Each structure stands twice: as C-alpha cells, then as structure tokens.
C-alpha cells in the first residue's frame, strides 16, 4: 500500500500533518484522533478522546519484514492505542496491509507473528 500518510487532530480543532509536525513532536496530551490516509482517502481513524475509562495512548508504526533471499517480505502499518486497565497494559491495534486488508487485533504478542509488541521511543512516554 503506497502513499500512506497520517494526520493528527488536536482537541483545539487543529489538524497537523507530517509536513507541519514530525511524528516525534506530536503533543500526545492533546491528541483527539489520528488518521491514516492513502492520498486524501481516509483508511483508518483512531479515536483518542477521553471516554471515561482512562487515557488512550497512540500507537503507530510501519513494520517491515524482509527475507535475505530477495523475495518480497511484507510492509504493513500498525495503528491503535494502549491504555492501562487494572494495572495491565491493554492494546487495540489495526494492522493495515498493502493489499488493502485491515485486521483489528488485540493484545500484542498474540498468536500471529505480526503482533510483536512495539518498543516505545523516548518521546512516547505515555506508552512506557
């Protein structure tokens, strides 16, 4: 799936894109929603507004699998959220594949090889 990009919506109504704000510099405390788009077409929107059950922290990655024999691996996108429920981290992740499929997954480290947990970057303090 080519030409995938994102945009983020703040509580103030402001919408930012990678061109205006690098992902690492997103104000994660002000996020209301996060979109993945293909061109101008909305593929997935992740709602992050307060829902009375606690904060939801954004998760977003592009994951690449590569074989060393030159055959095509796979590239897909993870987008979703993580929150703490009763002291446990709980995730809800959408996996977007190059053929257009969308898989709604649950916890990291599920049975599928795709569902390895992410390693938070230093700017993702709400995921640590």
């Amino acid at each position, binding site marked *: 799936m080519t030409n*995938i990009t994102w945009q983020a919506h703040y509580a103030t109504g402001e919408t930012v894109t*990678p061109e205006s704000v*690098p*992902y*690492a510099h997103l104000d994660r405390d002000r996020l209301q929603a996060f979109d993945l788009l293909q061109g101008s077409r909305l593929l997935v929107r992740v709602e992050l507004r307060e829902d009375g059950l606690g904060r939801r922290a954004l998760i*977003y*990655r*592009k*994951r*690449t*699998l*590569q*074989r*060393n*024999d*030159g*055959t095509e*691996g796979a590239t897909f996108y*993870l987008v979703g959220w993580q929150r703490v429920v009763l002291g446990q981290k709980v995730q809800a992740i959408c996996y977007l594949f190059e053929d257009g499929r969308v898989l709604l997954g649950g916890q990291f480290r599920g*049975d599928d*090889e795709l569902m*390895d947990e*992410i*390693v938070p*970057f230093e700017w993702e303090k709400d995921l640590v």
Partner: protein
Amino acid sequence: MAATVQIRRLTGANGSITSTDITSGSVHAGTQDSNTSPCAIPVPTSGSNHSYWVTAQLNCTASADNALNNIKFWTDGANSFGTGITAIVSTASGYVQATGTTGSSGILLSVGNYATLATGGASDLFLYTSSCKLTVAGSLAGATTGSFGDRVVSQLSIISTAGAGNSVAETLNWQWDES
C-alpha cells in the same frame, strides 16, 4: 516514513570492514572471510568443522522520518541444511573478524572467541521462529542513515555424516519498526 533498509554482511579486518548488501542474494558460509566464492567446509572424518562466522547487520540508506527500532530475526524453525549440518546464531554489540584456517575450519563462534557476543553465547539458529524471534538490540534515532542495531552472527558446523556438495539454502527473516 520512507526508510530504505538493507541487510549487509560484514567481512574484513576491524578498521577496514567490507559491508556487502545481501538483501537480495544468497549468503555463503564457507571457510574464508569473504562473501564471494567461499571455500567449502571439508567434511571431517571425526569431530566437526565450522564455517567462518557470518556477521550481518541492518543498514539504513534512506532515512526514516523519525526513527527505526525493534529489530527481530528468525527462521522457519526447520533445519533443512541436511544431515550432519547444524547452525548457531547470536547477537553481538561489536564486530570481530571471522578467522580460522582457510579451506579447513573457522574458529568456533563463542564468547571466548568473539568478545562482544551476547551473554550466554550462541544458540541453535532454528530455535528462533516467527513466534519466538531473536531480539536484536539497537535503533537508529532521528532522520539519519547508516548501520544500526547489533550484529547477527551465525555459523554452520558439519560432522562426518554430512554429505558433500552445496547444502539446501535457508531463508532468514528480519523485521524492524519505523516511525
């Protein structure tokens, strides 16, 4: 996000390392420190002969928007090299040139012989599968290029029951995340 990442094999002496793009080709484990035309591993009459260890590392040639991390490595879990052939793997925080006796055997991949090998040394390559991947430490921060992550170092060993000729090729898998 537009990172371009290659898989590279490292050979040569420290300080003048040769980094060869192996993303789209076979890697031969023979009895010399080279990625081309390697010397075969002789089948021993007793004991075992080892390949020179094979050191691989990821290299980013076009940067990500932000960073790369969460490197994983694994196999299909089935040793198809053939009778009498085994393989081990570990990660290493540094590079040590493979040595041994050309045309005969490499020295064993061990913590004693490879100073920066991960604690505990090497394990069976085929223990690492899609549900139990080898975690490779390291990341590439910022919109930068270059090598990143620990090295993945592997080695074949053969015993007297191995047959002559080229072994079946095994596919090795890498994975990384990008933001």
